[in-house]
């Protein structure tokens, strides 16, 4: 191993260790109310020992009219469970009806915003996920590979809570698709998301997110994902209602496969409901 590589590796390890020390000093909490903004993840992680059950629905386009009950006749669903291994590390799995997709992720918070002495201006969380399409192969006669079913996402979530009521988040993201449909599509898709939360009252908040995909990476007819949501927090539950143009709830869907164009009024209604369960104790 080259000395330079060893040095860089050492710096990375030291930074990771330092981040753990820094975590012991945190006191800016709840930059976002939940671990999801709308479709994508927020910087928040589960508390240690807490399992979060999440059920999400995205319906058809509202513009489909009364015959489709404004989209409610069609729905895609994701059911998932996240678990806090530590206060700063969460793992999760989920299953979406859309393309019968299984997904799993790891999320680690490296920095936590802190005010006062030795302040830290941001919360920084790393997110990495894998998704597996489990649909039957469209053409079983050809040679198919399991790896063709795999999709990977890596994100850095950077957020700052500016006040009790307002938080902002940036999400530089890379989605890797092992197999793409056409030659013009890129396997590695780079994008940058932006999200916010504005607290309307103690229980109600407005949230939104937008993922800008850098040009010339996707096939024609794919659009940037945008969503606006309202969330209400009750005892142990968070309800999120949203309007957006994506119907998938896994990164590879809403970042690279959003096909509804908001400029044409193609909005979908959807919701996330989360419920926390304490599976084990923790240090208070």
């Amino acid at each position, binding site marked *: 191993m080259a000395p330079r590589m060893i040095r860089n590796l050492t710096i990375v390890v030291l930074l990771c260790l330092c981040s753990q020390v820094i975590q012991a000093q945190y*006191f800016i*909490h*709840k930059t976002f109310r939940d671990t999801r903004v709308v479709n994508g993840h927020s910087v928040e992680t589960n*508390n240690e*020992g807490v399992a979060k059950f999440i059920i999400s629905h995205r319906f058809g386009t509202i513009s489909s009219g009364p015959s489709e009950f404004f989209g409610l006749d069609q729905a895609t669903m994701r059911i998932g469970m996240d678990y806090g291994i530590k*206060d700063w590390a969460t793992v999760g799995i989920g299953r979406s009806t859309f393309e019968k997709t299984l997904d799993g992720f790891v999320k680690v918070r490296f920095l936590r915003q802190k005010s006062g002495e030795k302040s830290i201006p941001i919360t920084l969380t790393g997110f990495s996920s894998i998704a597996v399409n489990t649909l039957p192969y469209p053409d079983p006669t050809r040679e198919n590979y399991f790896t063709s079913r795999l999709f990977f996402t890596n994100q850095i979530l950077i957020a700052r809570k500016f006040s*009790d*009521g307002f938080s902002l988040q940036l999400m530089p993201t890379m989605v890797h698709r092992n197999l793409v449909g056409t030659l013009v599509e890129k396997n590695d898709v780079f994008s940058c998301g932006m999200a916010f939360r504005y*607290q309307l*009252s*103690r*229980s109600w908040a407005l949230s939104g997110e937008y993922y800008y995909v850098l040009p010339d990476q996707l096939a024609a007819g794919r659009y940037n994902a945008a969503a606006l949501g309202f969330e209400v927090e009750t*005892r*142990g539950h968070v309800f999120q209602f949203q309007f957006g143009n994506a119907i998938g709830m896994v990164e590879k869907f809403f970042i690279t496969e959003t096909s509804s164009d908001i400029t044409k009024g193609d909005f979908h209604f959807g919701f996330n409901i989360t419920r*926390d369960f*304490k*599976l*084990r*104790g*923790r*240090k*208070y």
Partner: protein
Amino acid sequence: MSMKDLRYILILLALLMLSSWDYSGTEKVIFDESTPLMLLKSSLGKEIPSHYLKETNPKETEIGRQLIFEGRAQLEKGKSDYISKFYVCTSCHNTVKENIDLGKVDQEARLDYAIANNLPYLQASTFWGVVNREIWYNDDYVKKYGDLVIKASKSLKESIQLCAQECSQGRVLEDWEMQAMLAYLKSIEVRLGDIGLTDSQLASLNSNELDQSEKLRIIDEHYLVRSPATFSEPPADKKEGYGMKGIPERGKAIYELGCQHCHKEDGVSDLVLDNAKKTFNWLKKNITADSQYSIYQIVRQGTYASHGHREYMPHYTQEKMSDQQLEDLRSYIVQMAR
């Protein structure tokens, strides 16, 4: 010297030897400020209860401390299982002295002491000196919970088990855990110097002027062997409250040392009460509500564990928060909501 004289001399010598034996073999116990209250009372004829461990070791005491503060302990084979998923003992109990005068209930003095020493202002009695008490879960706890607390009211061990299973919604303690917790509790027992005796009272305990019962009476006047518990109701008209004028500065202390002990970020409660104006507005709006979000209702009645949501809030008895203090809390909330 005749045989008779020799006999007298021998008897005299024998008497001298006996008398000297008597004096050298009896050590007079001097009670001073470091004397544990339990040993003093025992020397005055009180029976030592079974929860009071005669011998403890530092390792066991440390394990007990961990169980009480962290809910589990670091053992040689690894960390033990949490006693409760939801709480630790110190969620509701302090482990230090909470009042200067230990012979009476004085909510204002308790709050002053909490402010001066930056102590949480909690619903439950402190563990400091709990081994010196003679009754636990007394008064209205017995009236309300009946058979559930009868055994616990007469035994500290039963009280701890009840607390582990019901109050903290956890599990039965194993023998080693109980032993370790008792060892830690012994390490925070009350000593003679803690109960505020005057020099003359201390001297009288060391003299023969008073008999044992009088000495015990002096001690009992300075230390409550039970923690009185009176349950009360929210005011009939929440808008009017209890009719006293609240002092916001006192209410601020109650909010910060009491409410926010549990209702903080990453605290034991999901409901976070921060210092945001929206939070105070929400609390103010709910003062008159007929719900658990009214400070009157939650402080006086608490909530109960339910299926799927075992976390709950125990109420404050009158002795732990007076009506005046509740009005102080209200006045602070109203002030901060402006």
